[in-house]
């Protein structure tokens, strides 16, 4: 065996010279990003390839030198709204490099953001389709915020600028709207973010009974290292979609929306925009109260004025009305009286006539009767005169009595009987000497 050997450096240089041929330089490669870190202006990353089950089948170190990184980063961000971050699928132009100390690495010289965009859209579509198939995509969006949301559970990274802005805005609102907030801290970026946010949601759910939250706000200040991949997560989206309280999102991105924005009830760009929305809602409610108050005041005074006018009108009518009423009554009375006399005249006249006639008849009848009675009396008097014994006596007749009893038969008399004879002008006492019965009877 030839004991001539190569130094390590010679070997690596040999490998490098063999590998660094035109076929390995400036080739486009697709990979998934992992462990992205920026140090000293250079961007280091791991490039991965996984199979369908998620197992790594290839792995390589990648680097973007500081001379290229700002340009590539800006280009990528402008197109995708994303920074280089774990989980992103990328298409990079790389050159294979073998370094005697650092070994195999891929030096990135360009990026094709469209590939990443396409991949993100495809992944988002998959998540959205799954949520839709499960019938939960729209659930949170169908919830209603109360008329004035005032009790707000906030999910944010503690100490984050976005959280501070939100709280400052909310509690320094000029209308002095009353808000009650509580921070439920969560990691807002990195691979642990979805689980951390889900845990915060669960805590809010457990607290809802005691805090009576009106809704949830998930906020994150927009920073240079925005990593929206955390929000492109099925589990997180499914949790938000099915959360029983309405969720508002302000995760500090302008140009792109995440799956979370699709499922959340309210999507706003930044934490301050969420605060503004809450304040505006409250101010509108205050404005409504003021307008209702004014309207009620106006209606009440209109009603009062109307009624006062009506009353004044009635008042002004009252004296005239009274006078008119009296006058009307008087004229009615007069008419009635006039009518009455007419009526009585018509009614009385025949009666009076009848009465007069009756009176006349009565007096005539009485006079007739008196005359008749007088005649009868006269007749009777004449008769009486005729029948009276005095008249008889005067005509020569006399009455003979024995012992006071008138004598009508000779049979009642005997001789020597004392008898008394009454004449018209006196009496004779005599003694019977003889009786003789005549045959005249």
């Amino acid at each position, binding site marked *: 065996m030839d004991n001539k050997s190569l130094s390590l450096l010679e070997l690596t240089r040999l490998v490098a010279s063999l590998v660094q041929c035109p076929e390995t330089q400036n080739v486009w490669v697709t990979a998934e990003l992992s462990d992205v870190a920026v140090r000293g202006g250079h961007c280091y990353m791991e490039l991965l390839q996984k199979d369908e089950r998620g197992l790594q089948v290839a792995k390589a170190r990648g680097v973007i030198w500081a001379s290229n990184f700002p340009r590539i980063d800006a280009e990528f961000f402008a197109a995708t709204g994303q920074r280089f971050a774990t989980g992103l699928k990328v298409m990079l132009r790389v050159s294979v490099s073998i370094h005697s100390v650092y070994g195999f690495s891929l030096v990135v010289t360009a990026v094709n953001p469209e590939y990443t965009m396409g991949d993100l859209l495809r992944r988002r579509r998959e998540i959205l389709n799954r949520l839709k198939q499960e019938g939960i995509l729209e659930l949170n969006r169908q919830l209603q915020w109360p008329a*004035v949301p005032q009790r707000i559970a906030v999910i944010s990274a503690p100490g984050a600028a976005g959280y501070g802005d939100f709280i400052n805005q909310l*509690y320094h609102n000029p209308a002095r*709207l009353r808000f009650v907030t509580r921070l439920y801290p969560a990691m807002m970026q990195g691979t642990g973010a979805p689980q951390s946010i889900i845990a915060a949601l669960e805590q809010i759910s457990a607290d809802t009974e005691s805090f009576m939250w009106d809704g949830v706000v998930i906020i994150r200040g927009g920073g240079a290292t925005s990593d929206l991949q955390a929000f492109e997560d099925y589990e997180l989206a499914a949790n938000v979609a099915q959360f029983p309280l309405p969720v508002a999102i302000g995760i500090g991105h302008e140009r792109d929306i995440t799956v979370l924005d699709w499922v959340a009830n309210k999507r706003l760009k930044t934490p301050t925009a969420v605060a503004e929305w809450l304040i505006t809602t409250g101010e509108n409610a205050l404005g409504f109260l003021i307008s*209702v108050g004014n309207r009620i005041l106006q209606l009440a005074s209109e009603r009062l004025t109307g009624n006062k006018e009506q009353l004044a009108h009635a008042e002004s009518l009252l004296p005239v009305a009274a006078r008119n009423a009296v006058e009307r009554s008087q004229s009615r009375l007069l008419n009635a009286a006039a009518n009455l006399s007419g009526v009585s005249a018509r009614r009385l006249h025949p009666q009076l006539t009848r009465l007069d006639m009756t009176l006349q008849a009565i007096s005539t009848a009485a006079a007739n009767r008196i005359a008749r009675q007088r005649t009868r009396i006269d007749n009777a008097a004449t008769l009486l005169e005729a029948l009276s014994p005095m008249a008889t006596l005067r005509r020569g007749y006399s009455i003979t009595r024995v012992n006071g009893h008138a004598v009508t038969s000779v049979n009642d008399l005997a001789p020597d009987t004392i008898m008394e004879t009454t004449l018209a002008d006196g009496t004779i006492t005599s003694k019977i000497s003889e009786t003789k019965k005549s045959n005249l009877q």
Partner: protein
Amino acid sequence: MNATPVKELTYNQAITELEGILRLMQSDDCDIDRLAALTRRATELIAECRCRLVATDEELRAILADLEK
């Protein structure tokens, strides 16, 4: 009239009642006898709603003091 004390109403109930009063006062069958009562009730409701929406100075100071911690 609904005599539920305003403190016991939810904000939405109060607003709904307020709108009802407004409608009643706009309609022709608003009795002048009830006008004062309606206006008083509306005023109470508005005051209560405002009170729910707006924090007092002391409350604000307390909240902001909490935030400073």
